[in-house]
């Protein structure tokens, strides 16, 4: 059987090309922004994802990585003594206005070099265990993109001169790279105060984490512990509520623009072909057949536009990642979901114009 929709689309290749480009533009708005959204979310919790902690201990009332606690040494000691705990380590995160080389904002991660629960990942140069050395620092290659850093270089952080002992790749929270220092070095940066923002806990296999959480709550009124997954979700939610939701607005605008393009394109194409639909009706096409042609046309345009838009989004992501270090994330489920939603919306949008074709008076074929 001849696919009339395909024949119509392929007949006017210029129009098809313009439609695909327009749709691809709208799809890029949707897919690329979604990719940035997921990429940001994913990088915002990269520390949690790379930590081998089962539980995170925070002050009561705190529940995400963006609201650091002020935990004392006794909290760490309690955690280490708790039944079923294999290992517990303190962690500090210091961001704000910290600049490295007086120019580049960074977030300082203070870890215990002997703690196996969290270590820098993606080490490109050097050895992370050298962090034990006095005034040692591990920097990310994103930190000084325009001013390459090499092993053994001296960098200045908050007035302190430190020596680079390792360089990592992609250790960052979206646009702010992490630099790692030991807890001793961190004390120098922080005026010598001994406290932690978080305590990470690793449990022995077969230990029920809920038991540890309850025990913590009963022993310490002012502390709360969260499963790693809960802590991750709460941190993502905090980020969304702090403004990442704006991306949702951009995505929504992209969806509306895409839908308008599909609707307008299908509408114009249908109106131009109204007489052809009348001819088809006159020679025996049912209303259902006409509807099928319109829907197939819209679906084909959407699929082609989506393919082009997805390719453009991935290309754009590659360029932005290469030159600006911002990496999007494109989970297959999200892409398929976006495609399904767009197809459904395209079908709905095309119905406006297809209704015209379905209800066209076939007797117009007798008019010259």
């Amino acid at each position, binding site marked *: 059987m001849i696919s009339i929709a395909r*024949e119509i689309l392929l007949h006017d290749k210029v129009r098809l090309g313009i439609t695909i480009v327009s749709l691809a533009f709208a799809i890029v708005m949707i897919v690329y922004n979604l990719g940035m959204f997921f990429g940001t979310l994913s990088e915002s919790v990269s520390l949690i994802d790379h930590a081998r902690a089962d539980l995170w201990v925070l002050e009561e009332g705190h529940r995400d990585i963006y609201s650091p606690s002020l935990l004392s040494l006794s909290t760490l000691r309690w955690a280490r003594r708790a039944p079923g705990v294999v290992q517990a380590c303190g962690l500090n995160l210091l961001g704000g206005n910290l600049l490295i080389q007086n120019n580049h904002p960074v977030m300082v991660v203070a870890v215990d070099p002997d703690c196996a629960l969290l270590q820098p990942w993606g080490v490109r140069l050097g050895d992370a265990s050298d962090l034990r050395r006095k005034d040692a620092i591990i920097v990310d290659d994103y930190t000084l993109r325009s001013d390459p850093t090499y092993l053994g270089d001296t960098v200045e952080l908050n007035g302190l001169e430190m020596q680079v002992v390792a360089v990592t790749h992609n250790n960052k929270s979206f646009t702010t790279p992490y630099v790692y220092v030991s807890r001793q070095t961190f004390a120098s940066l922080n005026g010598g105060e001994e406290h932690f923002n978080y305590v990470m806990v690793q449990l022995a296999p077969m230990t029920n984490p809920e038991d540890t959480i309850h025990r913590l709550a009963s022993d310490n009124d002012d502390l709360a512990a969260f499963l790693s997954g809960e802590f991750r979700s709460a941190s993502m939610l905090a980020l969304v509520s702090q403004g990442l939701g704006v991306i949702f607005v951009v995505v929504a605008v992209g969806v509306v623009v895409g839908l308008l393009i599909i609707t307008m394109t299908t509408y114009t194409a249908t109106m131009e072909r109204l007489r*052809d639909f009348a001819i088809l009706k006159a*020679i*025996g*096409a*049912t209303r259902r057949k006409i509807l099928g042609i319109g829907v197939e046309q819209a679906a084909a345009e959407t699929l082609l536009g989506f393919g082009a838009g997805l390719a453009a989004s991935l290309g754009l992501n590659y360029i932005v990642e290469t030159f600006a270090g911002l990496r999007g994330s494109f989970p297959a489920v999200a892409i398929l979901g976006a495609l399904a939603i767009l197809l459904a919306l395209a079908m709905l949008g095309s119905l406006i114009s297809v209704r015209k074709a379905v209800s066209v008076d076939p*007797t117009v074929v*007798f008019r*010259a």
Partner: protein
Amino acid sequence: MEPVLSLHNVSKIYQEGRHEVIAVDNASLEVYPGEVILILGPSGSGKTTLLSIMGCLLSPSRGEVRVDGRDVSGLSDGELSSLRSRQIGFVFQSFNLLDFLSVHKNVEVALNLANIGGRAAREHATRILEQVQLGHRMDFLPKRLSGGEKQRVSVARALATNPRLLLADEPTGNLDSATGRIVIELLTGLARQQGSAVVIVTHDPRIMDIADRVFYLEDGRLSEGARMPAQDVSSRAFVTQ
């Protein structure tokens, strides 16, 4: 012999504001297999409305229409579409070819609509296009054809499904007289060969000689006229009974 098409006291009335316009007034007609009927009438006489009713594209306000003995008044949209795709072929003044399809596909699509697909449709389309001497134009788009060639494609499309009834609306209207003559002879010749009944609506009396019976339509009223002998076609005379 049962008529392929019968109209019994068919009227079509349009409401224009507070006035009624009677486009077809109490028309009755029976068309038999293999017969060629010519309906002559000036512009605005109701020819198109009558043809639309015959082609099941328009419902009459009154009266009964039967195609192949079947009353079409109660048929659904799907049933009417099926009837048109299998039993009725159309030839139009302005050809009405689908400009985005090749000549071959224009014919094939009519077969597809009658649920004939694949190789059978392709081969049959090729055969019928060869019968109308367009075997060498099958991959052309309609815009590359002359008027006569377009109308021959239209004839091939109309006859491809071997319909019981072929309706032609001013088939020579956009053609010069020589080409028009060739097309009309091709159309009636093939239809007779297939045993299809043909109804041609026109205001061109030059083709009267090809008709078995001639009707005249004036102000929506249909009346049977006398058949002119072939040799008298040039006189363009028309006599109502």
